[in-house]
């Protein structure tokens, strides 16, 4: 076999205490389309960042043409012929195609005419018909990606990494993009193709590698594997290894009934019932639009279709304040941006959604009651902090997550929507958070838990709603659900029921 263009040899990457990659090994050969598949959080992004010089391996090495190489930053990577194209193209909207392609051209005086001709040649090589004088903001996503690919080609790309390039493209554009990827490989480029869509992996790739939990699981020729095997490898671990499903506490009382809920251009036709005492898990991949469903129920996104019945009456919720007043809590997946004011004290964050509880008639805060509440949750949720007056940003991710839960539990909601309840926190804290949510529903609440972590979906969900690209694929009973089944629905291998 020829020498690999680029290879990872036993590469590990640690961020603080978390291992994002562990002894990863991968070889990319000239002329192949190499697909990489894995669950969200499997370590794909970290791997790309190491290959493009954004991160440095903690241990292990990266080889280019068989020689150990250190890539210091993405510019160094580009000079060695490694470039990446992402789902959201990074073009400069106000510049035209030529300028975008030669964005990193240096020199005080640029030869515009020569650049234009070169841009035309590159666009032709990509196989697109495109006027090089058009301004990038007017281009379709697929055209913008073509511009990005042409930019990479202008720098003699030898390894082109395409990270979910078709995730936001229409079917027709996606076909076009796959054709480009194939033709580049035919010209000798190593194409790394990362995708959640297994059907396109099988259509396009020569070889496919599975990674899981930051480890390399398998690399096979595409003819030697099949979707079922890939899904099994992606899901992998013995389900229930560290999450055991707690018995359902569902009652017969329907708290929330959603019929045909939709938001134009985002998701449509979502229907489910949620009973008191029940946990409904929402599974799916990134881009399945599960968070948008939650935002529509929480009043932060305006629904354009469907009916929602809540506590037996039609529900019209137009703002988060109304949702909170109705007893609906939403624990965001994004602690930093939407969940917590990191610079402010734990106590302030905990009382944020329920400040009214602590206000005197004159609008002054009863600090004593507020402190008592915060100390109470600190004890009950086992939040490890020296003091409730320290900024919440000083805590570990798991403890931040608990502060966020405390903030919402304190309003004693009827419906608790939790988005990615355990993202980025350690296993021990995960189990604690799961127990908290289960205890909440056991006392008569209902929970909607959005999670991209399959073991978590299976451990939490009394029933499991699977979404894919804004559509509801199925609602599975816990006992009938398997990781493989959920993954097949989430990746579109199996149609909607």
């Amino acid at each position: 076999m020829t020498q690999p263009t680029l290879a990872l040899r036993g590469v590990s990457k640690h961020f603080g205490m978390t291992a994002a990659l562990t002894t990863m090994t991968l070889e990319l050969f000239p002329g192949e389309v190499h697909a990489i598949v894995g669950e969200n959080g499997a370590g794909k992004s970290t791997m790309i960042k190491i290959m493009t010089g954004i991160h440095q391996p903690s241990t292990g090495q990266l080889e280019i043409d068989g020689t150990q190489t250190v890539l210091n930053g993405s510019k160094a990577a580009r000079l060695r012929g490694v470039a990446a194209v992402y789902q959201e193209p990074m073009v400069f909207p106000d510049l035209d195609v030529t300028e975008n392609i030669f964005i990193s051209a240096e020199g005080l005086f640029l030869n515009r005419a020569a650049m234009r001709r070169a841009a035309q040649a590159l666009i032709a090589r990509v196989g697109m018909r495109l006027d090089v004088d058009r301004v990038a903001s007017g281009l379709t996503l697929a055209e913008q990606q073509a511009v990005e690919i042409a930019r990479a080609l202008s720098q003699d790309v030898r390894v082109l990494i395409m990270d979910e390039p078709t995730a936001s493209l229409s079917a027709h554009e996606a076909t076009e993009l796959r054709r480009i990827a194939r033709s580049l490989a035919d010209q000798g480029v190593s194409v790394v193709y990362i995708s959640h869509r297994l059907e396109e992996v099988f259509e396009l790739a020569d070889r496919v590698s599975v990674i899981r939990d930051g480890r390399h699981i398998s690399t096979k020729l595409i003819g030697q594997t099949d979707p079922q095997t890939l899904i099994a490898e992606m899901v992998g671990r013995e389900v229930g290894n560290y999450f055991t499903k707690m018995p359902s506490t569902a009652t017969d009382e329907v708290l929330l009934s959603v019929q045909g809920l939709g938001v134009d251009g985002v998701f449509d036709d979502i229907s489910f019932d949620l009973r008191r005492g029940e946990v409904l898990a929402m599974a799916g991949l990134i881009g399945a639009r599960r968070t948008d469903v939650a935002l529509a129920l929480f009043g932060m996104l305006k629904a354009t279709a469907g009916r929602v019945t809540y506590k037996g009456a039609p529900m019209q919720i137009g703002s988060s304040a109304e949702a909170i007043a109705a007893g609906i809590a939403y624990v965001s997946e994004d602690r930093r941006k939407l969940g917590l004011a990191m610079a402010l004290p734990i106590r302030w964050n905990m009382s944020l959604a329920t400040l009214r509880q602590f206000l005197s008639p004159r609008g002054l805060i009863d600090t004593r009651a507020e402190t008592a509440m915060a100390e109470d949750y600190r004890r009950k949720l086992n939040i490890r902090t020296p003091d409730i007056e320290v900024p919440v940003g000083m805590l570990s991710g798991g403890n931040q997550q608990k502060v966020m839960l405390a903030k919402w539990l304190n309003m004693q909601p009827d419906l608790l929507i939790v988005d990615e309840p355990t993202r980025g926190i350690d296993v021990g804290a995960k189990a604690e958070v799961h127990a908290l949510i289960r205890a909440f529903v056991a006392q008569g609440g209902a929970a909607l838990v959005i999670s991209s972590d399959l073991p978590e979906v299976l451990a939490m969900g009394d029933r499991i709603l699977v979404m894919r690209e804004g559509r509801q694929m199925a609602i599975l009973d816990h006992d009938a659900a398997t990781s493989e089944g959920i993954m097949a629905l989430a990746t579109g291998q199996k149609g909607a029921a």
Partner: protein
Amino acid sequence: MIKRLQSWEGLLAAVLVVIFAFNALMTPEFLGIGNQINLFQLSIEKIIVALVMTLIIINAEIDLSVGSMMGLSACAFGYLFQNGIAPPVAIAVCLGIGVLGGAVNGWFITRVGLPSLVVTLATLIGFRGLARVMVEDRGIGDFPDWFDALGQKGLLGPIPFALIAFVLLFAVIYVVLERSGFGRKTYVIGSNRDVAEFAGIDTARHKMILFIASGAVSAFAGLLYAARVGAVRGDVALGFELDVITIVLLGGVSIFGGKGTLVGTLLSVLIVLNLRNGMALLNITGHIQTGVIGLLLIASVVVPRIRLTRAKAPKEASA
């Protein structure tokens, strides 16, 4: 962070004590009650506006239009007075202009979604323009004696009305910021507006209230200026916004929002006033005084940064 803020205020207090002691030693007149009151009187309009500006900046916004609003209010008073409107009515109209002007700022910022920097820069120009249209190049004066007395004479013994107003406003805003739900929301919105939105807080309404308060207090301060000087011109309070913002930032309020206290602003007011006063008593010219204040402002930004890096360094080493 709370501790760090407290220690920042501690530092300000220490600086203040040093300036105070130095002034007292250098010039015996400094400690006289007359000098102390006079020191406040000369900048009273700015320091009143600085109290509301503290809230605005903690809220991660800025109001550049305060100086022009002071000018507009003062000129509107002069214009109305000259046209035979009874002064109490004119005062009410001027305060109304302040509320309206603040609401205009608030509307563009919260409903149209423009940055406050841009909106209030525009109204800085607009309000000033209106003031100049009303008064043109004349000076308007000869206000009733009771009006001038409010600005110039002691109301409670030697203490003038404006100083009493400052103390009362300080007390109210202190309680609001430190103890009330509104104050808490001011910090939270300034720290992270999205988090506040998701917690059901009406951030647009909150900001609207703040900008209306800023406009009203600025208009009030403009009237105080008219009373103290006894005449108005189109350039009343020109450029005051920068002095006001300087005082607030020097007091440890973060320009990025979410951080700062009213006590910090008060200490900063006292430092600036005493420093200027001390330098004046030593016959140091106004230009040099301004330069020294500028250096102080830079120091106020640099010093916490140095302390922050020092505090961070050992943690990063252990990670």
